[in-house]
């Protein structure tokens, strides 16, 4: 069973903990992303799992075997894993074919078998025509595919990927991330994917683990993370958001400021009358100019915010509004489909369903 367990994993550089008491269980065949800003410890965690770094505390298990701990350190070459690096790390002095074939040297395959496998995976990533080229002659995207084929051809138990798409242009990135997801669904290798790009994580992963300053902040399915962020950090990092601070009054009520009371979802675990935040996603807020319809929705239970259009940025596929609520000296950010166009300074009503107003602590 190619499951991975991180139990209290800790790594310090000088005295600062880069990874701080991390717990994570990754299931067999699961695709989990480690998501976070730079310096959050995600790459360090990945390198700990790969065996390039020794933990200062805790342990790493694959299946039932301990592979890293204070007493055990299985070297990377014996972990039966593969890794794709941010720099691709494709060897410049070997051809594409030789690069991909390299890992098979350590398995007991006949040359014929090995060659067959290599060709198979080269077709899989659509590089068969370039098999005798050298990496210097390839584009970034092509090199990335070489790295992919090289990692997969050895049939690893676990696949590790360290920000593999960050050096590609936006278009290629999108293409490659669906490619990665597609391959995963076909081959189903346990995969741990490191990225700072939340869209990438959402598009590829079964679950996302959000890290900050070496600690695990939240782990869950993409939808969960997005819809029910546990902390302000997660809310802001994963997707765009509005954050309103205020006091949670219990019973799904939140007091934001004078005259602004919001009905919220969640908060069951919070004490009444404690400080809290509300997270409203810009996409989840509806804008309308028609006051009567807005009031009607308010009566149905929606939270109503009355304000003026302060700024709008037209993106072609969406419009990004900043709406000022003069009564409460607050700004809300709202993203609408392109068909909704309002004027600068126009009186406008923003509506948010309580389910979309998530209470979070910190």
């Amino acid at each position, binding site marked *: 069973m190619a499951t991975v367990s991180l139990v209290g994993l800790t790594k310090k550089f000088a005295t600062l903990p880069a990874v701080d008491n991390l717990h994570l269980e990754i299931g067999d065949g699961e695709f989990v992303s480690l998501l976070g800003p730079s310096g959050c410890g995600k790459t360090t965690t990945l390198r700990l799992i*790969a*065996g*390039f770094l*020794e933990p200062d505390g805790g342990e790493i298990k*694959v299946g039932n*075997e*301990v*592979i890293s*701990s*204070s*007493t*055990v*350190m*299985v*070297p*990377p*070459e*014996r*972990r*039966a*894993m*593969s*890794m794709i*690096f*941010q*720099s691709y*790390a*494709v*060897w*410049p*002095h070997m051809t594409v074919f030789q690069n991909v074939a*390299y*890992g098979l*040297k*350590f*398995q007991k395959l006949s040359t014929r078998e090995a060659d067959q496998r290599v060709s198979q995976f080269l077709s899989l990533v659509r590089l068969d025509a370039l098999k005798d080229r050298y990496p210097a002659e390839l584009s970034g995207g092509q090199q990335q595919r070489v*790295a992919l084929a*090289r990692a997969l051809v*050895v*049939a*690893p*138990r676990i696949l*590790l990927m360290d920000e593999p798409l960050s050096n590609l242009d936006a278009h290629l990135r999108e293409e490659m991330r669906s490619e990665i997801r597609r391959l995963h669904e076909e081959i189903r290798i346990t995969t741990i994917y490191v990225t700072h790009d939340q869209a990438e994580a959402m598009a590829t992963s079964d679950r996302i683990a959000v890290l900050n300053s070496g600690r695990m902040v939240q782990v869950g399915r993409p939808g969960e993370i997005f819809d029910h962020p546990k902390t302000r950090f997660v809310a802001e990092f994963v997707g765009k958001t509005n954050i309103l601070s205020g006091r949670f009054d219990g019973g799904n009520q939140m007091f934001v400021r004078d005259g602004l009371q919001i009905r919220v979802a969640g908060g069951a675990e919070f004490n009444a009358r404690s400080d809290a935040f509300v997270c409203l996603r810009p996409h989840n807020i509806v804008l309308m100019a028609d006051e009567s319809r807005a009031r009607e929705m308010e009566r149905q239970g929606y939270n109503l915010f009355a304000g003026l259009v302060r700024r709008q940025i037209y993106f072609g596929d969406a419009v990004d509004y900043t709406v000022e609520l003069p009564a409460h000296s607050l700004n809300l950010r709202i993203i609408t489909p392109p068909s909704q166009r309002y004027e600068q300074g126009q009186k406008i009503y923003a509506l948010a369903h309580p389910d979309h107003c998530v209470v979070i602590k910190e």
Partner: protein
Amino acid sequence: MLAAETSGRYWGGLKLKGWDSTLPVWVGASLLLVLLMAFPLGAIFSTSVRNQAGLTFGNYAEVFTKPAFLTAIRNTIIISFWVGLIAVIVGGLLGWLVTRTDLPWKKTVRALVMASFVTPPFLGAFAWTLLAGPNAGALNKLFRAVTGGDEFLFNIFTMTGLIFVMALYSFPYAFSMIANVCELISSDLEDAAVILGANKLKTAWTITLPLALPALLSGFIIAFLHSLSLFGAPAILGLPAGIHTITTQIWTLFQYPPRLELAAAFSVPLLLATMVLIGLQKRILGRRGFSTVGGRGGQKRVVKLGWGRVPVFILVLAILSCSVFLPYWILLKAAFSRAWAMPLDWGNFTVENFSYVLFQYSDTQRAILNTFKLGILTATTGTLLAMLIAYITNRNILRGARYLSFFALAPLVIPGIVLAVGLFIVYTQPPVVLYGTVWILFIAFLTKEMPIGFSQAESTFKSIHVELEDASRILGANRLVSLKDVTAPLARSGLIAAWCFIFIGVIRELSAAILLFAPSSKVISVVIFDLKEEGQVGAISVLGILLLAVSFLIILAVQRLLGRDLVTARE
């Protein structure tokens, strides 16, 4: 795919981490390195405080009170000081001219500086005895012919002559340091001065100079240290005039009956002085090995020499003639002459010297073979060891890996003759007697050339992304296999350069070989020294030319490989 093995083990109370099978290699290499350094140094320290009676400081007392020894110490300090000063002035001037002005034919100038660098100082000294011996020296003869008088222009067998020759072959070190720094100084800083009204000279004096000061100081120290450790030049030029230096004095103490404990006591202060000065030099330069000067990036415009262009170039050429053209010319002449002091006419022309050295005299034949054998062996072993050690320090494989780089660079601090004293003491007695064999020379050369091999290997590895090795390791290759399959091929040109540097260093080494050689393990430098004592000018010239030719061929090959100028691109 191979299954990962559970391999936690306890061994006594010592936690034995899960078995990286390549560990013995790293530990072995590190141990070897440390022992190479530790044995001779330990031997020197312990011998210096012993005599027949037991532990004593009497040896030091004798070294520092006996007039002959004090004179040697004083001579050494005076000589080294002046050498350092001249080296820094000449090296600095040339460095600035080559990097910051529109001096013509800069490439040629750099090449000639490189040639000065490659010429063994003892060979240069020997050539200068032919050029400037007061009566028979070619230059003095010319001078007499021109002036019609009886005087000589320049007697090389004097303190001044010795300083002159030693400076000629020390200035490339200063040049290298200073040229590197001058390259970095942005013109903006100088432009600022010019705008404010300073002329070219004033700008150079008030702006460029202070910025380059750390490099100048550092160059002085390096040249000073280099001259401290020279043996051949003082022996060839100083001894005939009755001038002893510390190195020649140490050598003399080995004559029968030998006074090893005095030699050791002499060596220790030399060692300490070198350590202090190197420490100072590193401090001055900061950790990067060249001073970071103000003005990041910025333009680098060239100072126009104007009408001074040609005269300055002639000056530069004159300087470089002293270290390259004149000595090489006289060596060639002497190699092909029956009587070196006579003009090279048909009657005087001969190839006898070549045939003698190559085919008749067994000592030279043996020495040539020994030299190249030792060169190849040391270069290969040294590169391998340097590669392993640089790998360890670069990839941090062992705990305390950075101390290892200290050991790898430590020999810089040990003058060749001091190292030889230590090795002599260790290997002329049981349990391991290597004296009398080529192996003691091998150890001496390996130790001495380690720093250059290591620093070259280190800078090469730094340029290879660690992820390239990680990629092979995760696919199943252990560290050694990764080193072989990925790192070494990519580091190839750098490692070849390291091999060549070590080779050249070995074939011209004298100050250690002179104490450690035995009749059957002579090398070219020692034979040249031997023949000098017999006055066999023709044979010496042939050997000298051989050394130079081989060295240049290799340097050219390396420059082609690395595609850069070797003098200034090094630390």
